[in-house]
């Protein structure tokens, strides 16, 4: 599904990604962990074309997308959510999700102005269904900017799903949530986001990674330092070191 080879992305002198290799198979769900600044979100930004890669290859279903514009990339089947929450604050909750359908392959150009009744009705039902699933139905007509944080996170998930992506990138989908809200989010992702598609999840909550992912990749300083089944990787010395550091040697 996604193949990343020797990917480098520099910001000035800083290498946010320093030769990253990552391969994600069809239908896999992969957890991406690592300390702050290790390049996780940068990877999402490069994969979705927000930042072009400095060097290296990114292939989506075998096609090179390194130099493609973001709208082209996402229209070929990628959707994402944002760690720092991005919603259309002055559109309603319903419109935020509806908006994700505009440039979907099944919506013809002319339907941007002249909707076909039956098709549009079905799509609106689909939006309402997603709002129902994510527990946002009762806020349907409120402006999205007024929602509390957990609702905004769920709105982002609903919007990403409305694009019907084959590859879904979730950037800290439970960031800033209470344990109860996190648990609800895990259930949502497991039940409606993961089935039938490829997923990459960035998360700091290890319990979430254990629950959702087949495989974990650990990033540090823009490189992959460990990879494997969640249980094994989370016990790996290098991972523990990257996260909480190591005791200074006695002679230092």
């Amino acid at each position: 599904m996604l193949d990343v080879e020797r990917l480098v992305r520099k910001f000035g002198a800083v290498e946010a990604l320093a030769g990253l290799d990552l391969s994600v198979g069809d239908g896999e769900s992969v957890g991406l962990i690592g300390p702050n600044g290790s390049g996780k979100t940068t990877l999402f930004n490069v994969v979705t074309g927000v930042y072009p890669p400095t060097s290296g290859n990114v292939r989506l279903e075998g096609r090179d997308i390194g130099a493609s514009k973001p709208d082209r990339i996402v229209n070929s089947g990628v959707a994402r959510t944002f760690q720092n929450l991005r919603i259309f604050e002055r559109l309603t909750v319903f419109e935020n999700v509806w908006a994700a359908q505009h440039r979907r392959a099944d919506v013809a150009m002319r339907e941007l102005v002249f909707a076909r009744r039956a098709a549009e009705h079905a799509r609106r039902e689909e939006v309402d269904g997603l709002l129902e699933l994510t527990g946002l139905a009762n806020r349907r007509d409120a402006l999205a900017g007024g929602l509390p944080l957990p609702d905004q996170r769920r709105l982002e998930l609903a919007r990403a799903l409305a694009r019907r992506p084959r590859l879904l990138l979730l950037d800290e989908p439970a960031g800033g949530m209470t344990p109860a809200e996190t648990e609800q989010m895990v259930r949502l992702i497991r039940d409606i986001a993961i089935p039938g598609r490829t997923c990459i999840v960035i998360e700091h909550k290890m319990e979430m990674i254990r629950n959702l992912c087949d495989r974990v990749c650990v990033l540090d300083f823009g490189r992959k330092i460990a990879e494997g089944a969640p249980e094994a990787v989370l016990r790996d010395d290098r991972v523990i070191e990257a996260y909480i550091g190591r005791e200074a040697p006695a002679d230092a």
Partner: protein
Amino acid sequence: MDDHLVGVLSNIGMISFIALSAYLLLIVGEISFGQQAFFAISAYASGIATAMWGWDFWPGLAWGAAVAAAAAVLVGIPTLRIRGLYFSIATLAFAEMVRLVFEVFKYQVEIDGEMVGPDGSDGFRDIRYIFENDITAVEYMLMIYGLLAAVLCAFFLLERSRLGSIFRMIGQDPVLAQMQGIDVTAYKILALGMAGLVAGIGGGLYAHLTTFVEPKIFNVMLGVHSLAYGLIGGLGTAFGPLIGVAIDIGFLESIRAISGYRMIAFGGLVAVLLIFRPRGLLDEAAVNWIRLRLRRRHA
């Protein structure tokens, strides 16, 4: 009907077009100080068509608006690559350039022993179509409002459509809009072309109402006012800019006792609103509230 009143209402109608034009660009998140350029281009182009080429009024108006739209797209292709403040400055520079070109633009033909056509800074006189065809001031006012109603209907259809929400998405967060698969630059150019068309309709109507256009009236103050109309009236609905026009032209400019204080009152109003209602009286929250109220009543 009182002549003064007809004149004021006609003015409100005409200026509404350029206000809607600036509003459309505010929706996509761009501040243009140059919509008066498209108003001017169409005033000249449609005037040339009816007064010099002998076209009928409607084809002349359509031609003027089409030229304005084409000019807007041509300007948009290079300038929309630059964002924010730089786009605003580029539109201002373009509009001043257009005005200065009309200061030296001479293109005259002899009709019935008289020279007709743009004559540089002396302006373009005798765009007399509506007088030669015995259209009264009231009839012309009704034509203006008929067109305005049609354009408003188009705006309301747009606001309900996916295209309208694409414009709003781009205005709120272009990166997020891109992540919904939207080619931001292409849609901005489309918006600029549509805004040019709408300003152009106003410009053509203006030229035929006054029968006389001169370059200096298309100065930057016209552009600044048309921006302010949307910011006063509100960016949540196309009614917003019309409210702005009605306050400025209908109230401040037209009532003699206060017209001397127009600019002071208008500037003060803009300043106060920018602090208390930065997106105008009918902003998105107000419009959503009204919409929900109406729906509940119908349900």
